[in-house]
């Protein structure tokens, strides 16, 4: 059945994204939780929320593990069963999937799902090292391959196979910074020029500084319930109608293709089939633009264009606000920011705003169907979800 809701989002919260000096992850998560509680007056959080799932990548940042209980405690939900999920940068995409299991199992009527990361108090070298832990240690990290390096390997392959250009990569950054300029919670709310993006210094050739997402502090959360109970909490629910998750080899080097992520394609197929939706029916999307090449590959893996034509899609303006299928209206990981554990449910937060027409200056007109694409590591985890307005 087309568009049958699996679960309903009845509220959502997002902290400010950026360099949040003097705050701990738990305090940032509490900010996101407070927004979600305040948006949902019929919800009694302490009584109604039966479980919390939190995406969080690294205990190295704050010397703090045991994130599930910590976040429940500081969100005012002490004693609520709380579990952390870790899937690198897809930690909260995987948490969302886990929360859906909890509701669909019948064990929980109302659950909270979110994610958090506090990163900016560490040096860039430390953050680079912690993020690299999402890649293979004995064969990738050990031989000096960095995280940007893995996506650079994909970029080189994509440019070689399809003629994708550095200019097209830069256009992804320019577009997402434009969208970020319309988002008051984005880390960077300034537009950039194509020239400045193209002339920024190399991080891992062919990727430059402006091809990379940001180091960010932030948190995000959603309140989910069974579709039949959504009306009790809100008259503006957003339904999740498709969910897919898949894995791939931890090492990029073992894969058949470096120009497509098999896990993302598999997750998308499951989500599309479950939702009864075709790629051309998707009105807007939030994709995992950890690097500009990742957004171009995402267009192709999600079926928004043919394999190899992702560069042209951004060049034509199709994925800009007002285009055929706006992508990363929030500013994406590039401009809104990328607190890694928070990213998956932050993408879902944008779905919630857009599909309840609360996206203000960046509102997509007549948006009915949205998609999120959340990637962990170099694509060893992918979570894809499809959303429909209530």
């Amino acid at each position: 059945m087309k568009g049958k809701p699996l679960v309903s989002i009845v509220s959502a919260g997002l902290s400010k994204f950026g360099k949040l000096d003097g705050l701990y992850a738990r305090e940032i998560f509490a900010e996101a939780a407070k927004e979600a509680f305040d948006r949902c007056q019929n919800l009694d959080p302490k009584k109604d929320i039966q479980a919390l799932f939190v995406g969080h990548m690294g205990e190295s940042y704050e010397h703090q593990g045991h994130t599930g209980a910590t976040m429940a405690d500081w969100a005012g939900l002490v004693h609520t069963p709380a579990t952390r999920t870790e899937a690198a940068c897809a930690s909260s995409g995987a948490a969302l999937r886990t929360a859906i299991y909890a509701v669909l199992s019948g064990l929980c009527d109302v659950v909270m799902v979110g994610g958090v990361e506090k990163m900016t108090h560490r040096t860039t070298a430390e953050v680079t090292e912690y993020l690299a832990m999402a890649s293979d240690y004995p064969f990738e990290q050990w031989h000096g391959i960095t995280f940007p390096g893995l996506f650079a390997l994909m970029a080189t392959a994509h440019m070689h196979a399809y003629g994708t250009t550095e200019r097209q990569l830069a256009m992804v950054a320019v577009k997402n910074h434009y969208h970020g300029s319309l988002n008051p919670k984005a880390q960077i709310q300034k537009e950039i020029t194509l020239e400045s993006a193209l002339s920024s210094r190399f991080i891992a050739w062919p990727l430059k500084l402006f091809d990379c997402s940001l180091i960010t502090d932030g948190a995000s959360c959603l309140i989910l319930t069974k579709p039949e109970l959504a009306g009790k909490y809100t008259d503006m629910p957003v339904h999740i109608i498709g969910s897919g998750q898949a894995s791939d080899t931890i090492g990029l080097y073992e894969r058949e293709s470096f120009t497509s992520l098999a896990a993302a394609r598999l997750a998308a197929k499951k989500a599309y089939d479950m939702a009864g939706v075709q790629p051309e029916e998707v009105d807007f999307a939030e994709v995992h633009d950890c690097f500009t090449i990742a957004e171009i590959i995402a267009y192709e893996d999600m079926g928004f264009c043919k394999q190899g034509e992702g560069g042209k899609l951004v060049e034509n303006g199709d994925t800009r606000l007002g285009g055929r299928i706006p992508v990363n209206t929030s500013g994406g990981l590039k401009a809104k920011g990328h607190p890694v554990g928070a990213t998956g449910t932050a993408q879902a937060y944008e779905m919630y705003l857009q599909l309840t027409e609360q996206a203000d200056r960046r509102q997509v007109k007549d948006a009915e169907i949205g998609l999120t694409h959340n990637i962990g590591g170099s694509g060893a985890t992918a979570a894809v979800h499809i959303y429909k307005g209530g």
Partner: protein
Amino acid sequence: MTEQAPFTIEQFYKHMLQGKLLGGKCKKCGKIHLPPRPLCDNCLSNEFEWVEIPQQGKLLTYTVIHVAPAQFQEMAPYAVGIVRLENGLQIPGMVRGVALEQIEIGMVLKIEFGECSTTQPWPQWSRYCFKPA
């Protein structure tokens, strides 16, 4: 004896110190794993034999790392790539012995085994690289 050595990453790197590139061939389905694995990802068998892997192959893709982790900072900028060996198996590594601007996809490279220079207790893996054949 090599035949009885465990099919582990540790052993794979030990072989490299002896100048050998060896993979684990599944005795049941014949799939060769590089590096070796304890469980065949094709047929789930755990019985293997060591086989020699061709030391030469073609560069599939590469990048030049400018911002490197602390322990590699002195080497930057340096190239890393993924090489498809002559039997079709793929392995990543640094590309050395060629000017960065002369590296190209499809070039023929040969593995060169390095020392285990680390003094830390773990890991004690060696470092290999690829050079023009």
